[in-house]
C-alpha cells in the first residue's frame, strides 16, 4: 500500500517536466546541461569524501572508537541517555550507513518499540551525518577556513541527540 508521502517524489518530477514543456524549454538539452554539471560537482566533492571516509573507517576499525565510547558513556548516562545508545551517539555525525547498521543492531537487541529502540529511531531521524554534509557542502564554497562551523554543528547534534531521549520519555 503506497502512502500519501510516496506521491511527493513522482509528482515533483512530473511537475518539473510539465512546467518545462509548458514554458517551451528544450527539456532534453537542459537535462543534459544539468547532468554535465553533476559530473563537475562530483569531481569537486570526491577528494573531500576520500579524506573524510579514511577518518571514519579508522575510527570504526581501530581501538580509538571504543576508547571514545567508554569516555563518553558516563557523561551521556548522566544526561539521561541510555548507555546502549553511546555507540550510535558517536557514529551518527560520522557515517550514515554506519549509524543505520548500529540502529538495526539496537532494534534486534532491545526491540523496535522499546524505549531504547524509539530513542535510537528519533536520534537517527532527527540529526544528520555532520562530517559528510560538511565535506559536501563546503567543497564548492568560497574560502577554506571553516571558523566556528564544526564546533557549532557538533554542539547542535549533541543537543539534538540528548533531546531525542528526553522527548521519547514524554511522547
Amino acid at each position, binding site marked *: 500500500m503506497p502512502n500519501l508521502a510516496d506521491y511527493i517524489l513522482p509528482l515533483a518530477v512530473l511537475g518539473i517536466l510539465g512546467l*518545462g514543456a509548458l514554458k517551451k524549454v528544450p527539456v532534453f538539452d537542459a537535462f543534459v546541461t544539468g547532468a554535465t554539471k553533476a559530473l563537475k560537482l562530483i569531481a569537486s*566533492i570526491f577528494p573531500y569524501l576520500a579524506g573524510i571516509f*579514511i577518518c571514519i573507517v579508522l575510527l570504526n576499525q581501530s*581501538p580509538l572508537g571504543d576508547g571514545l565510547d567508554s569516555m563518553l558513556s558516563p557523561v551521556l548516562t548522566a544526561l539521561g541517555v541510555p548507555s546502549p545508545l553511546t555507540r550510535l551517539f558517536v557514529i551518527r555525525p560520522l557515517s550514515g550507513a554506519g549509524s543505520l547498521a548500529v540502529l538495526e543492531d539496537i532494534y534486534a537487541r532491545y526491540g523496535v518499540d522499546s524505549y531504547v529502540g524509539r530513542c535510537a529511531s528519533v536520534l537517527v531521524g532527527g540529526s544528520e551525518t555532520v562530517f559528510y554534509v560538511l565535506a559536501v557542502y563546503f567543497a564548492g*564554497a568560497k574560502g577554506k577556513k571553516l571558523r566556528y562551523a564544526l564546533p557549532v*554543528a557538533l554542539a547542535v547534534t549533541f543537543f539534538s541527540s540528548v533531546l531525542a531521549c528526553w522527548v521519547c520519555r514524554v511522547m
Partner: protein
Amino acid sequence: MNLVFVILFGLGVLSLTLSDPQAVLPTLLSGTKQGVDTSLKLTSVYALWVGLMEVLEQSGVQDKLSKLFGKVFGRLFKGESPRTHALIGLNLAANFLGLGGAATPVGIDAMASMTGEKNAVSDNMILFFVLNITAVQLVPTTVVSMRAAEGSMSAGDVILPTLVCSVASALFGVGLCLACRAVSRKLRARRA
C-alpha cells in the same frame, strides 16, 4: 578541519598500529574505496536531480521563487542575492519533503553562490550548513521504513518526536550561530 583531520587520522593509525599493524593499509584503502563508491552512487543521483533542476531553472520558476523565499529568508540571510535565497528555499523545501537527492545539489549551488570572505567561509554559509544538519523533515522515511521492516507495532510513532526534536535543534542551531556571529564581529572590531 585540518586539526580534526590530523588528530583523527593520526590517533587512528597510531592505535591501529599498536593493535594490528597489518590492518593499517587495508583500512586506509577501504576508506578511500568508500569515497569512490559513495561518489559513484552520488553521480547517478545528482545526474538525475541536477538535470531536472536545470529544466526548472530554464523554465524561469526561480524568479518567482526568489520573490517568495526572499521574503522568508531575506532577513536571516542578509546580503545574499535573490537567486541564492531561491536556492536556499528550494534546498530546505526539498529536505523537508524528504527529497535528499534533490536537496543536496541545490544546497551546494546555494553555498557556491554565497558571498565569501577572504580565505574563510562567511557567517551566512555556516548558518545555512547548520540548518542543513538539523534534518528538519516531514517524515523520516528511512527510519520509519526500517521500523516497519523490523515488525514495529507502530512504525510511524516516531514521526512527531523526530519533528519536535529536529525543529528544536534547528532553533538552537540558529541561536548558536547568531551568538557566534556576534562574538566574532566583536572580536574583529576590537582587532581593527
